[in-house]
């Protein structure tokens, strides 16, 4: 059980206490809209709040491999502006990042390095496999290339294309945000920090 989980549990116990109290108060006050207040605000889970914070502050690792890395750089630039989705803070150290964009082909020599970098990232962490080569080996079905990076690290979102344009990668990031939000407050999210 990670630290975050403990904190979430504590908070949720506290919040449920508050909810009970508030419910009593609201019942006594007998407002018309007391039910609405209760449903809209007070039933929100703390896990959801944390997921919302996480999805809007994805910090990718600067992990450029090949051609796709150029398009990844383009995504961070002014025209495509990944900052709109909170994913522009590229971190040089994997220990400060929580999103790994595998941008390009992964060779047999690079695969152990990639795994090490993934292990160095703090939990919870997500992986986007960018481009055909990272997703399945692409046009390079040969001795040198790992046929899909999902053989080395677990992948959350696959972005197709050779190379995918920045807009495709942005769509991948939005999809990942949806995934984070769907998982937030559930067992899957807890599993990520186990």
């Amino acid at each position, binding site marked *: 059980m990670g630290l975050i989980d403990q904190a979430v549990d504590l908070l949720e116990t506290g919040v449920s206490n508050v909810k009970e109290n508030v419910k009593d108060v609201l019942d006594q006050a007998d407002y018309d809209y007391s039910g609405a207040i209760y449903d809209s605000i007070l039933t929100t889970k703390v896990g959801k709040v944390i997921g919302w914070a996480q999805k809007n502050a994805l910090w990718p690792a600067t992990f450029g491999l090949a051609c796709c890395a150029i398009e990844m750089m383009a995504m961070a630039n002014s025209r495509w502006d990944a900052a709109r989705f909170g994913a522009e803070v590229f971190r040089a150290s994997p220990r400060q990042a929580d999103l790994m964009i595998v941008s390009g082909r992964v060779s*047999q*020599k690079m695969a152990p390095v990639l795994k090490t970098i993934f292990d160095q990232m703090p939990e919870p962490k997500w992986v986007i496999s960018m481009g055909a080569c990272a997703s399945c080996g692409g046009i390079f*079905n*040969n*001795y*040198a290339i*790992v*046929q*899909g990076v*999902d*053989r*080395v*690290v*677990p*992948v959350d979102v696959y972005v197709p294309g050779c190379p995918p344009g920045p807009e495709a990668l942005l769509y991948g990031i939005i999809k990942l945000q949806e995934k984070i939000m769907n998982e937030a407050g559930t067992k899957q999210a807890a599993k990520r920090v186990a």
Partner: protein
Amino acid sequence: MTSEEIVEKIKTDQGKAINSSEVNLGDSVIFVGAERIHDIAEYLKNDPDLDFDYLSNITGTDYLNEEREPRFEVVYELHSIEKNHSIRIRVGLDEEDPTIPTVSDLWKGALYPERELFDMFGFDIKGHSNLSRLIMPEEWEGNPLRKDYPLTIEDVTFSHNREFKQDLVKSKPRTR
């Protein structure tokens, strides 16, 4: 100098040292034995008329599928910056003993291409300062660019996303 002149000059100066020469599609080409390559390279670099001071490229070739002897070939591309002409040296190498002396003492730029030849073809470069794997990992077996090395190796079978994929398969509606 034009390609024909270069070939003529080398023929008159070093006629015995080279095996043959030709002008192929406008490029001057000489064929040299592996034991003479260093002498010829030194001559090409130091001759004032030829003055090949720039090593452009070193290539290995494997002629396994073609009926010809010897099996391997090392190809050097040289330019002369001052004179603006070029030459190609082709050196045949035996299958049993692919050994060739280094030219990295003449052109420092030869260090890495020669290491690449060792790595990708398994040629033994005599006199090279650091003959170790360059592109493939240290523990790699075989020399990938040889023709008898398979192009594709299916090795890794496990996947992190296997569980998820099985769920997908299960949730598919059954056909028939």
